[in-house]
């Protein structure tokens, strides 16, 4: 006798991944030039954070002070942050 095929609700669930690319892909190795922020002149306007395609730039708050931090584990060195910085405080430095 032929075995009956399962109904849709008897089928096993599909593959669901909970691994994020940030856990396994350190794309920082792609980089030739690295962006360096001059924190003394940074106005914290957040344009670099908005335009970062990774995203690997974020605001780090530490008791009443905030600072723009670049995560070099993921930065691919595209240079958009340095180009778009309104006060030009980000330099692209060769590694």
């Amino acid at each position: 006798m032929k075995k009956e095929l399962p109904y849709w609700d008897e089928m096993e669930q599909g593959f669901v991944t909970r691994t994020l690319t940030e856990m396994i892909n350190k794309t920082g190795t792609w980089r030739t030039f690295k962006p360096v922020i001059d924190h003394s002149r940074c106005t914290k306007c957040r344009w670099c954070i908005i335009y970062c395609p990774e995203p690997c730039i974020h605001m780090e708050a530490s008791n009443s002070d905030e600072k723009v931090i670049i995560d070099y584990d993921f930065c691919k060195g595209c240079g958009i942050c340095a180009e778009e910085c309104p006060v030009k405080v980000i330099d692209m430095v060769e590694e």
Partner: protein
Amino acid sequence: MPFKSIKSLEERPDFFSPGHGLCPGCGAAQIARIVTKVAGKDTIIVTPTGCLEVSTTTYPATSWKVPYLHVAFENAAAAASGIKVAYDALIRKKKISKDANLVVLGGDGGTADIGLQSLSGALERGERITYICYDNEAYMNTGIQRSGATPYGAWTTTSPAGQKTLKKDLMGMAMAHRVKYAATASIAYVRDAANKVEKAISLGGPSFIHWIQPCTVGWRYDPKLTVKISKLAVKTGLWPLYEYYEGVTKLTVEVPKRLPVSEYLKLQGRFRQIMNKPEELAKIQSYADGLAGKFGLGPVAQ
């Protein structure tokens, strides 16, 4: 709530994870970030095949912190409509209580060429989905082949002497379906774009957003210029930023003094073969003038 400042947009959590395989300076990653930031946690992203799909969902990882579905090239809008209908049914049967936003992020190939029939069907049926087309003006994922959205004069591997036809008018097609909301966007005007995504999602749908996305590899420019080129596309009048709502087309970013199109073309290697041909440049300029006349942009600054 519209975004009044960049800070209010930046403070929204990111649902797009770093470590994806998109090129340095890729505009599609910026678009995916802004869209997921605005759409929020209760969102399902559907993408047809394309750059965004292959490089953000390499086995066994994903870059999406929201539910994500990849379907074939031609049926992203149909799949999204199906999910929305399933959600409606589950809510009606009281099995779940929360609704979800359905957002499709399709490339120009998956929207203007291969996915056009399912998009047309979804828009015509009035499905409550938001379709966002990130337009990089060629099939970049498979190696820069021309698509229906490739502009006049652009080099691709299958139009080596430059594209001989004008770009397909996707917005015109969406508006011809009498959609609830349609808009064009550019990453250089990010607040305007975020407000449009917010409006498209909150109105339900069907809504359509056409978003220009410079491609560093296919357009042949330095990766750092992605935002600058997006801005020049608007400033030269080749990409007017407008929205269509309740049958009225309204310009959202005024361009009082347009720049000549050569300012935009000279930064991109894909237009190199026409840069010393004035008659080709005049043709592109007259196309921009036509758009400017249609949407009420200013004259070209001398």
